[in-house]
């Protein structure tokens, strides 16, 4: 658990002292997580930490990871980035300079990641992330790897699917959080809807931390669009707006591109969330889920009280990629590991995977994963479609 973090280094130090005297047989490789553990995104941090711990446990049980004749055990250390640039930078400083971490297996948010990159790219530390911005990728960021689908993978298939379900959609309103993720997503969302023949009536911003959503809901309801797209807004905020919209009698298609946790959404919105389409969720207990996903999902339900989603499961996949890359490079030197990552093949929780996306980002640093569209039906996540991008299809058939 997150709370135990500060005791863990002490315990680890004591254990290390014992080992040091007995002559070290195996070494510990610390993997960092920098995610929100408080505020609207708290469930993301808790879920990611849990998934990372499961992956580390699995790797350790299977004998750890071997490189250059040494065996390493994974250990997860978490930091609260509060979804802000400042805390992102601060957590990076602590991870790199104090705790000597070379691999970060999960970080959320474009702004915190950008802040971290100022340090990690310079010092040569690998950062796996679920940041949605395009500006954090490219050949100038060779240590950065994205472990989850982003709007550039999701939006076209996601929106196209929704338009197929509702052919008469004509007008939309876009609500974005006023942060880096929201800002990078907005033009892309407007463009994609336009190509599908949906006109954007208004594109509005709100500050994270807003408590009263009636004004924004009143505005949406008076525009009366066929569809509202909540862009990168976290589930709790979306829930509040949906509830107000329901009160005002608006009925239309609800699209939540960053929609990850149905539980958080339902807790706030209740029945008002019914029918919403989610771009970042998944039903890991359903038919198309893999055995690994079903097992992780059941464990998360028990430990955290809510199932995993596309975002929270992602550190598992990052750790699997990292293990494969360390073994391939036969080194725990992040510079060598980063060189093999773009071409490494590994078994993600979804099945065989690798990295790609060179066409979009000019550098193969995007994990190739199926795009999953889900919908809230009777308060549960229901998977509507799961499709592999062309690059992933080619990799599987290779």
């Amino acid at each position, binding site marked *: 658990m997150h709370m135990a973090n500060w005791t863990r280094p002490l315990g680890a130090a004591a254990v290390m002292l014992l080992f040091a005297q007995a002559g070290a047989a195996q070494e510990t490789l610390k993997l960092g997580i920098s995610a929100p*553990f408080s505020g609207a995104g708290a469930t993301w941090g808790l879920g990611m930490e849990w998934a990372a711990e499961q992956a580390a446990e699995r790797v350790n049980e299977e004998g750890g990871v071997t490189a250059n004749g040494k065996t390493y055990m994974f250990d997860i250390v978490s930091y609260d980035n509060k979804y*802000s*640039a400042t805390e992102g*930078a601060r957590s990076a400083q602590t991870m790199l300079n104090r705790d000597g971490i070379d691999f970060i297996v999960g970080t959320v948010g*474009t702004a915190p990641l*950008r802040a971290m990159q100022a340090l990690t790219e310079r010092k040569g530390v690998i950062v796996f992330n679920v940041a949605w911005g395009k500006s954090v990728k490219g050949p100038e960021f060779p240590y950065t790897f994205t472990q989850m689908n982003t709007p550039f993978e999701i939006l076209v298939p996601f929106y196209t699917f929704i338009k197929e379900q509702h052919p008469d959609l004509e007008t939309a309103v876009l609500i974005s959080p006023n942060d880096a993720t929201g*800002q990078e997503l907005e033009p892309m969302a407007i463009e994609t809807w336009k190509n599908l023949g949906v006109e954007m009536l208004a594109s509005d911003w709100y500050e994270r931390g807003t408590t009263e959503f009636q004004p924004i809901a009143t505005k949406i309801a008076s525009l009366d669009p066929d569809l509202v797209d909540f862009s990168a807004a976290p589930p709790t905020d979306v829930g509040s707006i949906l509830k107000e919209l329901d009160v005002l009698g608006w009925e239309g298609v609800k699209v939540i591109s960053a929609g990850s946790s149905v539980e958080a959404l339902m807790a706030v919105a209740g029945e008002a969330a019914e029918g919403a389409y989610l771009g970042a969720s998944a039903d890991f207990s359903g038919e198309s889920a893999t055995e690994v996903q079903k097992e992780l999902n059941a464990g998360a339900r028990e430990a955290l009280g809510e199932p995993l989603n596309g975002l929270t499961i992602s550190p598992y996949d990052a750790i699997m990629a990292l293990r494969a890359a360390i073994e391939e490079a036969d080194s725990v030197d992040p510079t060598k590991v980063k060189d093999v990552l773009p071409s490494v093949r590994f078994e993600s929780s979804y099945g065989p995977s690798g990295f790609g996306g060179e066409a979009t980002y000019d550098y193969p640093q995007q994990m190739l994963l199926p795009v999953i569209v889900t919908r809230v039906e009777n308060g549960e996540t229901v998977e509507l479609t799961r499709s592999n991008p062309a690059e992933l299809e080619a990799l599987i058939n290779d």
Partner: protein
Amino acid sequence: MWNRLPGVWICVAFAIASVLFALLATNAYYTSLVVWVLTNAVLASALRFVLQIGELNIATAAFFGIGAYTTAITAVLLGWPFWLTLLLAPLVAGALSALFGWVTLRTKGPYFLLVSFAVTEVVRLVYTQTNAIGGNSGLVGMFPPMAIEAYYPALAVALLAATLFALYGVERSDLGRLFKAIENNDAIPRSVGLNVVFLKVLCVVIAGSAVGLAGGLHAYANNVIAPSDFTFFVAILALAYVKIGGEGHALGPVLGAALLTLVGQWVAGISAWENIFYGAVIVVTLLVFPGGLVGLAARARGLVTRSAR
């Protein structure tokens, strides 16, 4: 003890030792910690500096931010030379402090406290609304030039320590005595023909320039700044340093900042315990040792001299 020359020389020795440490230590974590301690010390000293005229200036946080943003904007967006970007930080912060002081210092007490609080929030909201300077995400990529980079922590420590000595120098000068006189009763200085409003503005400008420079140095030390770095909470923490260290002497805020920043590292990482820790330290000090560390030292010295007599 502190007021006599040997005390000052001890402080100078300490400052030189800090600079040498920042220059020679190889662990980046420890050098950045020294920079951080001194940044907080300047924030706390500047807050105490305005407390001399009896006002609690929450906008200390805003001028820290203005300094940092000035440096970051000129360095990252305009690509101006390093020294110029650093020099501009205190100048811009000082100029805006003059405007702020001239407009707001007609209020005092709780009204000045609240107006300075509101100004801090407005400045922060303006950053978040201005996309040209990164909006909510702030600015990234302030790096000292390659030639200086290795010495940067030492440079920052030296400049911050010099700022602290400068603030102390002003406090001990005639000007400092006038500030004190204003706190006690601003009718008396006025009755002898002094321009009280001008003196008050001057006090705010000196403090504002000091934190502006600290902000500029912070921008290069941190490489990243964002609006959320500069909430009113920065001033509140600075106030905690002042209270813990003791208001009675210029050394108080420095000691308070050093103690809380270093001990705070212990609990860093988990916001819950960090908050409880800071809160408990503030409450206990305020209620049990109202004079802070400096007050405690003075009392201990008083006991010693009394028993020696």
